[in-house]
């Protein structure tokens, strides 16, 4: 019954990640794409909330979108897995449905 949630906005711009983390059920996954990749960075105001959410929800971040923004995979919060578009497709197939938090 696991759902894949995609979040495409930075938590500094919109609260969609917050809403997503509040409503995502244990066992589901969150994939950060586009400007959402900012939430995967260590040492920001939002890093702890993401790290705390990872006790029940798996986090992934889209590598090409990190790279496009000059953000390094080395600065990603521990436990978040970096995937490419092929990994995005795999995540979509492995979960029962995909919910975009636009």
């Amino acid at each position: 019954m696991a759902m894949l949630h995609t979040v495409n906005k930075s938590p500094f711009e919109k609260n969609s990640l917050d809403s997503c983390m509040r409503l995502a059920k244990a066992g589901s996954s969150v994939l950060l794409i586009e400007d959402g990749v900012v939430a995967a960075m260590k040492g920001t105001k939002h890093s702890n909330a993401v790290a705390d959410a990872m006790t029940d929800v798996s986090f992934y971040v889209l590598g090409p979108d990190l790279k496009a923004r000059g953000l390094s995979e080395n600065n990603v919060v521990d436990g978040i897995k970096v995937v490419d578009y092929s990994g995005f497709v795999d995540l979509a197939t492995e979960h029962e449905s995909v919910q975009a938090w636009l």
Partner: protein
Amino acid sequence: MKFGILVNEGPYTHQASDSAFEFAKSAIEKGHEVFRVFFYHDGVNNGTSLAVPPQDDRHIPNRWSELAKDHSVDLVLCVAAAQRRGMLDEDEAKRNGKTSNNVAEGFRISGLGQLIEAGIQADRMVVFGD
């Protein structure tokens, strides 16, 4: 697996049509089927035949047309969203008394039923927008 994709944002706006295209391309490369991409709201502008982006930039509408041609992806523009934004195919232009049309190759205009059908037929529906 059978994928349906919904694009709610225009080309060259933020990133939705790029993300959607990269996702579709990757899914096809991995042997999945993308049977329909439904363009809604400003997303209908992805289907214009009149875009002339700079030579060194990606040509978003052409890129979709080629994907449709090479992998028989059904590219559907929402009719109500298209009419509001001046996107007309030959039939719609005639019906509305317009002298020209601007729907790129591989795209067709149809209704929301096609989105609902995609939701029913696809194993996964993936949404891209702003």
